[in-house]
């Protein structure tokens, strides 16, 4: 991600701000490849539950949460994952966004009962979680939405329509990053049985900080007591945002640390690691506020962009489809705010 700057906030923002579709094409390729790989895993019974049980019934909260997340990731200068890989390179603006996410996670925990009630009362289909439950066919969306983009992408690569001059040392073309990430993520799903996620990991960090600085308040928050069973490596383990050691602690926190550590080593090797100077005040506020919005959006939408776009979209989870529409709308709003208010 660091070498290609595979920034998911940039995917949407660049389309609205600059009519630049290069990252969007790379994300399409990644989702298409994952849809194809996961479908094959289903056919060959590598994945036991399909459509995955961890994507619940879709609700308006997925859409609204997506909008908040979309605005937040553009104002924050990166999504929850992008913030981590930039943090590892010494990016001070991303460190501010990171703090915003942590504070936003704690603030969202305070209003969790209202968010939960909104999500429960706006469920759209109680017994339908994936597109195949509506159209009655699992293969059709996979064929339509994965094979065609893969064939197009291959043609673009062969005809050189996917190349753009890049001068950064060790630059990895976006389409190559899409292939590499698709293989790694598919292998991770095959091994663990779950898509990658980081939003509950962030919330857990908020919980740990809450215990440290506001133990009495944190102890009373219902959000930090919720534990849900999660299928992981073929067995069921409990996990949640609470400040305890559970499946989230054992999976999401190592992933977060790995992304920060990986980009740190990569930037060090390329001679680019540096603790950057502080951004201008307006941008610093935007980064912090964007982080807070992302945390609130992820809680409302039951997951961040990593969970929904890389995890849910390839299996056509209805929650994720709603999230993507919301995030795209939010990114448009974020781009407008960025242009008119933040960067002047």
């Amino acid at each position: 991600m660091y070498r290609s700057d595979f920034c998911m906030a940039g995917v949407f923002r660049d389309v609205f701000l600059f009519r630049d579709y290069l990252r969007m094409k790379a994300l399409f390729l990644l989702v298409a490849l994952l849809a194809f790989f996961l479908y094959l895993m289903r056919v060959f019974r590598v994945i036991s539950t399909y459509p995955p049980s961890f994507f619940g019934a879709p609700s308006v909260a997925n859409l609204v949460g997506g909008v908040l997340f979309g605005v937040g990731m553009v104002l924050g200068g990166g999504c929850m994952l992008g913030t981590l890989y930039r943090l590892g390179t010494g990016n001070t603006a991303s460190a501010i966004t990171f703090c915003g996410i942590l504070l936003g996670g704690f603030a969202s925990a305070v209003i969790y009962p209202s968010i939960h009630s909104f999500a429960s009362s706006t469920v759209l289909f109680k017994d339908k979680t994936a597109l195949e439950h509506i159209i009655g066919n699992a293969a059709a969306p996979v064929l339509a939405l994965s094979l065609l983009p893969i064939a197009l992408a291959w043609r673009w690569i062969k005809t050189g329509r996917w190349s753009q001059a890049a001068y950064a040392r060790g630059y990895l073309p976006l389409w190559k990053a899409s292939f590499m990430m698709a293989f790694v993520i598919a292998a991770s799903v095959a091994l663990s049985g779950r898509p990658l996620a980081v939003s509950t990991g962030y919330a857990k960090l908020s919980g740990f900080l809450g215990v440290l600085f506001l133990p009495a308040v944190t102890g009373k928050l219902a959000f930090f007591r919720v534990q849900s069973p999660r299928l992981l490596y073929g067995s069921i383990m409990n996990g949640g945002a609470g400040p305890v050691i559970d499946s989230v602690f054992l999976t999401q926190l190592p992933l977060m640390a790995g992304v920060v550590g990986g980009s740190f080593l990569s930037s060090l090797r390329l001679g680019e690691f540096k603790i950057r100077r502080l951004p201008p005040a307006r941008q610093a506020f935007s980064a912090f506020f964007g982080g807070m919005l992302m945390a609130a959006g992820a809680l409302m939408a039951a997951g961040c962009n990593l969970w929904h776009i890389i995890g849910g979209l390839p299996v056509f989870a209805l929650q994720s489809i709603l999230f993507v529409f919301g995030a795209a709308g939010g990114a448009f709003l974020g781009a407008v705010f960025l242009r008119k208010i933040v960067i002047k």
Partner: protein
Amino acid sequence: MEHTAEDIVLDVRGQICPACLLITLSELNSNKERLKGEKARLVVKTDHRDATRTIPGAAFAMGYSVSVVQKERHYEITLEHEK
């Protein structure tokens, strides 16, 4: 050939993404006459890797020639009117 045009230095290090490109575009527009008249060239200092892709791409499309050099912990992108 010796370079005689004035350097307009734009330091956007530490700024959030995509401020580097937006500020550069704004600077290119406000100094358009001097740049097109080859009286000046724009030197952008950035520590954003992605800016080494987006700024040259946009500048090429606007008819500028681009050179990028990696300095210590940052990149220097020089934009001048294509001769």
